[in-house]
């Protein structure tokens, strides 16, 4: 029920941002922002009720619940960013992903696993939390990159009509935001991966199993590592950086959801193993 309310609020907020692209009513972005904030609150309540609540003895799904959490984080970070910056129009690019996330969470097979006490092990919680935060920042970076590429293309090809009509933030602002998202997301991802391998070492006495999810994670990490380094050291920016960020995010999706759906990874077997 709560998630429906959250979806409704997000939806209205998204619609508001889309209308912003055409109308200059100054109240619109504010209203849309509040819808997103209220939506995020409902969303958080929903997640608290179903996952983090201490008395809860239900199941946790690697796809649906995880996707829902990341969506919430994206919405929350966006709301924080858009509060005082003139980037509210980014909502037209970011919010649809949040909506997609929620839809995905309810459409994907639930395949829940019972919450075991082991789930509350600090290392695993840390591993999950860090990666979720990193993924949220990466998905923001992905949306921003898309807008950047769109805008840059219009400016380069001298399709100035469109470039001038689109009320998106300027290229430099977009690039700076993108830079920050990667700058923040990457350390979180690094910490999350280290915790993950650490946990594997603790529970299976072996940190590397050659599992597809592990391989993809490392690959994703490498993409962002390159981006992180090139941005800081060489001053990479703009188109190139945006394209790499998009590649990185595709790899995130593959790691995060793709593998879980199409393969028996140790994450899934891990849960079932614990069940026995």
């Amino acid at each position, binding site marked *: 029920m709560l998630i429906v309310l959250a979806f409704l609020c997000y939806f209205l907020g998204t619609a508001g941002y889309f209308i912003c692209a055409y*109308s*200059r*009513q*100054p109240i619109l972005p504010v209203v849309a922002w509040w819808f997103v904030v209220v939506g995020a609150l409902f969303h958080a309540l929903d997640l608290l009720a179903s996952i983090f609540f201490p008395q809860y003895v239900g199941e946790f799904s690697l796809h649906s619940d995880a996707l829902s959490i990341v969506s919430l984080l994206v919405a929350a970070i966006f709301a924080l960013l858009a509060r005082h910056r003139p980037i509210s129009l980014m909502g037209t690019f970011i919010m649809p992903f949040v909506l997609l996330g929620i839809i995905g969470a309810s459409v994907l097979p639930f395949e829940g696993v019972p919450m075991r006490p082991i789930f509350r092990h600090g290392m695993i919680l840390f591993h999950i939390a860090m990666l979720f935060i990193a993924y949220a920042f990466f998905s923001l970076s992905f949306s921003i990159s898309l807008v950047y590429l769109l*805008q840059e293309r219009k*400016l*380069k090809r*001298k399709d*100035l*009509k469109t*470039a*001038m*009509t689109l009320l998106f*933030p*300027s*290229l*430099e*602002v977009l690039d700076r935001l993108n830079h920050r998202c990667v700058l923040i997301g990457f350390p979180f991802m690094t910490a999350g991966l280290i915790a993950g391998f650490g946990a594997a070492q603790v529970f299976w006495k072996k940190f590397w199993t050659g599992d597809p999810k592990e391989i993809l994670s490392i690959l994703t990490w490498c993409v962002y590592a390159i981006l992180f380094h090139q941005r800081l050291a*060489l*001053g*990479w*920016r*703009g*188109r*190139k950086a945006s394209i790499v960020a998009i590649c990185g995010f595709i790899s995130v999706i593959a790691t995060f959801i793709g593998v879980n759906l199409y393969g028996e990874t140790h994450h899934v077997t891990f849960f079932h193993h614990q069940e026995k």
Partner: protein
Amino acid sequence: MEDQILVVGINHRTAPVEIRERVTAGLATEDISRNLDMLKRDGFFDEFMVVSTCNRIEFVVVSRESAEVIKAINNLLCEASGRYLSYEMVYTHEGLDAVRHLFRVASGLDSMVMGEPQILGQIKGAYREATQRRTVGVILNRLMHKTFSVAKRVRTETGIGCRAVSVSYAAVELAKKIFGSLRDKRVLLIGAGEMAELAAEHFMRNGASHLIIANRTVERAIELAKRFRASTIPFSHISNAFETVDVVLSSTGSVNPIIKKEDIKAFMRKRRYRPLFLIDIAVPRDIDPKVNELDNVYLYDIDDLQEVIEWNKEERRREAEKAEHIIEEETIKFHRWLQTLDVFPTIIAMRRKAEEIRLTELSKTFSHLPHLSEDDKKAIIKLTEAIVKKVLHDPIMFMKRKASRPSKEFYVDLVQQVFNLPMGDDRRAHNLKLPEVGCSNLRIDTNTTAMASEGGNIHPFKKD
């Protein structure tokens, strides 16, 4: 005859600039302004103000004798122009047309460059002057304040003023699409023609931090540098500046391109790929078009900018339609307010009668009951006030509702008979009272003002 709002005047479309100049000069002379004051004193105008800018001279008048007033103003304009003006140049708007016209003018819809913002300030100035000379009353006060809010609404809700319609402004707008803000951006000016100068001025006014000028003739460069507090570099050294500048404006008379792709490419790494925005307003072009192929480099020539401008003009026209819609809406709202003015005297008469009855009955009662304490008296006064207010509330709301109906005359008569109010529509007498009401908070709040103004005078206990 009812009060009419009139706009009589000439503008850039109806009269050539020589005539407008003469009229403006003529109006400033003593004679004419004395004539105007005389017209007002003779009761020709109830209220008036004059909007005079370089593109228009308009009289905004509230009067009951519109035909005479129009004739008088026509003569006045003609006289001011030294009899050069012909009467066809003068246009007249009456009633709602006048209201709509004022709204349109203030929103910049009637301006030479559509959507230009200065006109609003000029009208505000004219209104301020008129209030100082005390020539405006309740209707113009309300009308002008409404005009300002309509203009503001048009500005915020439509894009009429935010599209560049000149080359230099378009360049600044484009730069903002890339950099966001121009603050702390450095501008390099290559060639110091008039066009470049104008563009440089725009960039500086929009916050660019530093200007560097490179020109073949050093004198001209130095002259410009003084004006903008800029620095100059020798023409042959321009490529060295590419490392630090963000915007390049080029407008030399050179036949061959002076900036090539390789020149810029060499500096991009040193710039750490910070975006570089190049504007080439020279014909033939100064910058090799291939430069645009470089990452994070954006090159525009005069044709690109011209295209933007053409399209922006069209866009302004499209936004103007939205603005017209807003204006139509507000004109209707204002019309409704004007109509309530017609039922207003009856409402006041109703209130006055009730108030008189209340006060007479109160003083009768109090003279019979001398033992009442001050507090008791106060309570009783409060009570009577509340009763009168509540009893009158519905009839007043009824009147206000009927104000916009064509049958309002009938209802006014009916109410006057039911309450046995003094007949005769001495609107002027009532109108004279209105300014205090209207000026104080620009909202006719009859509830409080009528009570206060009358109760305050004859209240038997307030003096104690």
